């Protein structure tokens, strides 16, 4: 999509959405400053909130790998899942080297996509 040809609404609407997102993010940080030293971060409410945050993130990640939107959807699911499993295996073989895991995971998908366009 061309950058200059966007009508105003198409440009400003996502900006407005992002302002809402930034507000929903900063509110936690500001609240953290306001209540710092006065609240126990090990308390039950915090633990529950942390669980929801992890569950939500895991849900997003799994959905992006298994049912992606956009161009990733053109790749076969088996390629994405195989790349994810390989990245996961590398993480544990390499003593939790996240950088290596990312390189292997993303690299596998790139190579698989090239292989399919070249051979099929």
């Amino acid at each position, binding site marked *: 999509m061309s950058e200059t040809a966007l009508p105003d609404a198409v440009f400003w609407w996502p900006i407005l959405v*992002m302002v809402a997102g930034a507000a929903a*993010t900063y509110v936690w940080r500001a609240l*953290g400053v306001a209540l710092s030293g006065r609240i126990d971060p090990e308390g039950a409410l915090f633990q529950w909130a942390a669980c929801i945050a992890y569950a939500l993130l*895991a849900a997003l990640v799994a959905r992006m790998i298994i049912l992606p939107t956009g*161009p990733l959807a053109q790749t076969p699911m088996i390629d994405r899942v195989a790349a994810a499993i390989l990245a996961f295996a590398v993480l544990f073989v390499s003593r939790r080297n996240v950088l290596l*895991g990312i390189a292997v995971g993303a690299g596998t998908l790139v190579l698989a996509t090239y292989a399919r366009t070249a051979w099929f």
Partner: protein
Amino acid sequence: MSVPRTLHDYGSTGRAMVAGARRAVGVPSIVLGGSFLGFGALVHQVGLTVWHALFSTATGWALPGQIALVELYAVGASVLVIAVAVGLTNARLFPMTVTLIPLLRAPGVPRWQYYVISHFVAVTGWVAAMRDCPAMVTEQRLPYYTGFAGVLWSISMLATWAGFALAGSVPAPVTLGLVFINPIYFMLIISADVRARSRVLAAVFGAIGGPVLYLLTPEWSLLLAGVIAGTLGYLIGRRGGAHE
């Protein structure tokens, strides 16, 4: 690293800031840069402009929420749903800030400075500050963190721009690889860092619930999966004893 008997002194607040900035250069900033590269590519792929990508990184600067936002925007979710999902995704920033700020607090520093620096609280810098700052002279901690987070933020902006630019110019399979960085990155971070039983369960339930609920309701699936799987994980993890 052992805890020194006397607190470490960089000599001045300026030098503490430089020390923090230097400490940020290395593996943390490469990983962070790689993931923001992926974010820039993602924004390109959903048809938004480079300004949207940079605006999101500058004002949000918490990648999971930024990705949730762009993904939900792409499926046409309402602003309310997006804001709530982003808020829930980033709720972890609250306990992080609550624990970090007392560490950075020094006599004579006006309160507003902590509200400014709190925008720069995110996982990478937080982990480093919790590790390094207790060994430092009190009044040098805030400058140290400012230097550290300043470098990370700048790298994030640069990488966001680069990812957006690359997505439009490299071959299509490479663009796919860039967009794929983030799901892989967060999958690995969760696998590598999450220890507490309840959080592991929450993540596993979330990973199952996310795609399943998405088939039923694309717009609400993230919120539902987060609240249901998170609550289940919390309750079952607690019942199983071993709190942390």
